[in-house]
């Protein structure tokens, strides 16, 4: 059943206010979602005043600055800081993206930072993505071929080009967690990220399991919960198009 309201234990409360101590003139307010699993409290929004004169250009730099200089208790995932690993996916000013590639100058007004939407929160900005990983495993994201040879498995340029816009996916989950269908049916609907991966293997000319893969994904809930809301394509920090990949799967099923 669709649940629009948050459950009682998820209602967000007002948190602490960290006033600027540097005396900087260029201050920006940053509101960050906090939840501590060791305390029996509701999540809260802490507000930090950040000195923007001494802060690099990305949202992740702000978070690092807060963690290093203001409040070391804040928890978030990050690793490469170059938009390759997909760890720092979060919701910034109402849109999902990677904190490390999102410039804070692109965001208007105070900056609101939330974890990826509709996930079980583990701590602060860290959401639980285990359902998504299980679904990813269910599409068997590996090459299935009977050819066993010592040389390369050759692919024509044209066939290889079909993988462009698919292989670049870093599984940051920005798209899946932006999708209302995935919010309401996250257990059953595979979601844009996993369906894009499914399509990546369906369309691979070297893969010999296309029919089986299509059959597996052709399901009222797994695939057809996509209603082309297109939040996924709007959210993707790598500029990929999961909605189009899903449409291509639907098209293949309709014309097969």
């Amino acid at each position, binding site marked *: 059943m669709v649940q629009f309201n948050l*459950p009682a*234990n998820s209602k967000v409360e007002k948190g602490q206010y960290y006033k600027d101590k540097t005396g900087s003139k260029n201050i920006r307010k940053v509101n960050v979602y906090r939840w501590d699993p060791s305390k029996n409290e509701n999540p809260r929004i802490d507000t930090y005043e950040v000195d923007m004169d001494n802060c690099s250009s990305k949202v992740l730099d702000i978070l690092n600055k807060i963690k290093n200089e203001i409040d070391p208790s804040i928890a978030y995932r990050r690793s490469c800081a170059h938009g390759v690993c997909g760890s720092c996916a979060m919701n910034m000013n109402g849109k999902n993206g990677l904190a490390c590639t999102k410039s804070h100058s692109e965001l208007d007004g105070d900056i609101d930072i*939330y974890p990826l939407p509709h*996930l*079980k929160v583990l701590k602060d900005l860290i*959401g639980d993505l285990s359902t998504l990983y299980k679904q990813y495993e269910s599409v068997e994201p590996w090459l299935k071929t009977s050819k066993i040879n010592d040389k390369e498995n050759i692919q024509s340029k044209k066939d290889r080009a079909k993988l462009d816009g698919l292989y670049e996916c870093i599984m940051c989950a920005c798209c899946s967690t932006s999708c*209302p269908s995935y919010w309401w049916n996250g257990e059953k609907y595979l979601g844009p990220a996993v369906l894009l991966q499914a399509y990546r293997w369906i369309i691979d000319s070297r893969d010999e399991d296309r029919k089986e893969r299509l059959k597996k994904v052709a399901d009222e809930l797994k695939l057809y919960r996509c209603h082309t809301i*297109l939040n996924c394509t709007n959210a993707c920090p790598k500029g990929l198009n999961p909605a189009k990949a899903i*449409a291509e799967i639907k098209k293949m099923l*309709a014309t097969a």
Partner: protein
Amino acid sequence: MEDKNPISPHIQIYNWHISSLVSISHRITGIINFFAITLIALWIASLLLGENYYEYTNSFLSSFFGKFICMGIIWSFTFQVLSEIRHLIMDLGYGFEPKTTKISGLIVLIGSFPISVSIYAIGRLII
């Protein structure tokens, strides 16, 4: 047992895009159209029941409130048809670039108003 961990905010915080707005409006107009069809069926049924019944529904539909409902239904159908055309094109695999979806969404959202007004005007001319 209720989960100890909270659910992160979703619809409360997520920005609306034109495409998501068109999508939810498509659904809402779909539900409206379901009832609208029932209303139209009742209107036609009243014709079968005799002059008195027909006059009764007719006077309701030509009242201010009735006209408002008529216009609403026209808009809801127009929107549904436009949005459905957009979906059909997408089902063929076209128009998925973020810019194109924005433009096509705007055409559906804004275009539905002048089209429904002209349908209403043409309808008035005929009757």
